[in-house]
């Protein structure tokens, strides 16, 4: 329904842009049709297939990456808008032969089954823990005047933007809890 001839139109210069973006610490430069999302740029143009396309409408969270250190949904961002900015994907959470504490905790707690949502869960949890360390409240924070303790209820609420169709939620909560305390 949404496809059709428009998507195969030859791209002219008016509708494309040269975009420079730092990805996992490396500056990358690509020329893109302005319609290209950050997610498709990572996967189709930069060979970084860690971030996943689930719903492609901002509802499932499998495309979550860190943009200038903040977690965002890369399927709802046109890459042209992030020119000059810095992106970290799941591939950049740790070195090529190591695991971040969060990744190690996901393995230790069996926090995934099929694994499709995991890159998004990991990037979201990374961003979420930074938000907690900055003292940001959530919808379940009782007292807005003091930083919230990271209870399981807080973890669940703050991770609500990431769906897991295998329903590994209890293990994801346990993994995030452990990573938060390490």
């Amino acid at each position, binding site marked *: 329904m949404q496809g059709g001839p428009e998507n195969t139109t030859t791209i002219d210069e008016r509708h494309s842009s040269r975009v420079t973006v730092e990805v996992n610490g490396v500056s990358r430069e690509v020329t893109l049709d302005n319609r290209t999302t950050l997610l498709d740029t990572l996967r189709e143009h930069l060979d970084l297939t860690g971030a996943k396309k689930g719903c492609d409408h901002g509802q499932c969270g499998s495309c979550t990456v860190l943009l200038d250190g903040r977690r965002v949904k890369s399927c709802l961002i046109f890459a042209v808008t992030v020119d000059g900015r810095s992106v970290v994907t799941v591939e950049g959470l740790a070195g090529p032969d190591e695991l971040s504490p969060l990744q190690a905790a996901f393995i230790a707690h069996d926090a995934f089954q099929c694994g499709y949502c995991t890159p998004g869960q990991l990037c979201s949890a990374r961003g979420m823990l930074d938000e907690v360390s900055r003292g940001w*409240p959530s919808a379940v924070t009782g007292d807005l005047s003091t930083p919230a303790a990271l209870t399981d209820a807080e973890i669940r609420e703050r991770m609500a*933007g990431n769906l897991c169709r295998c329903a590994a939620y209890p293990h994801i909560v346990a993994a995030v809890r452990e990573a938060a305390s390490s």
Partner: protein
Amino acid sequence: MRAFRYHRPADVAEAVAVLAAEPQAAYLGGGTNLVDLMKLGVQRPDVLVDVTRLPLDTVEELPDGGLRIGATVRNSDLAAHPVVRRDYPVLARALLAAASGQLRNMATTGGNLLQRTRCVYFQDTGKACNKREPGSGCAALHGQNRDLAVLDWSEQCVATHPSDLAVALAALDTVVEVHGSDGARDIPIADLYRSPGTHPERETTLARGALITAVRVPPLPAARRSTYLKVRDRASFAFAAGSVAAVLDLDGDVVRDVRLAYGAVAHRPWRAYRAEEELRGRPFSPELAARAADAELAEARPLRHNGFKLPLTRAITVRALTELASS
């Protein structure tokens, strides 16, 4: 998706000039709604004017005690702002009850106010929708209208406004600062949104190409005792089945002042003036709160599938005000 040119203006004047020159251009904020609607083919701009790098991203405390919030301040930053948390908990709570952590990091203040309805018929180009395509009809009126309006709807449109933030801002008598090709002006939020009537495609009173640059929240010391209560089909990350923004100022047990606004009931954030009138000057009780809600909802016309919104809205009115009264 239609191909589009991308423009990043240097200042507000340039942004407004591009919109004036390009009849099918649109402003792009956080993109959480517009990008989705472009993917769905519901919106088809041929130019995007990216306003997110304009210097409109600060929250200022005003000399009168109010707050000026720039249009590109992200929802998450606003919710975490210490002055918002202390002086306007209703704002922080409304923001935190909306969307997800990732989306709040993206969504802007101005964009939040101008987001489009989540009526499923509006979002489906295969269905009749007067808002998307004037004159095509309303598939929602006799369709799956459980999520839609109970107040102030028309035969042409039964959509609701989806924002939580706008409900809180409506309760606070916020002023919206707007720049257009004819200069700058202030619009009280009560005058920003339109009833659907016979032109549901016109959602606000903004002239085409006008850009929201900031919102001004007036000083309201009573708002330190305020809250936002939202009921959803699931515990998190969903639009409201019902919501209420409430500010309560008691003198002993007598209601000195009260502000109430409802979400998920109408085409606009619904300021509950009639309920406020019922409450003011009377000793507070849960029964009084229920009567006030009933007075507000007296003219409601529920659709086939959304009659539950009336007892729900009454119940959250009672709960929110009772919690505030005992806090």
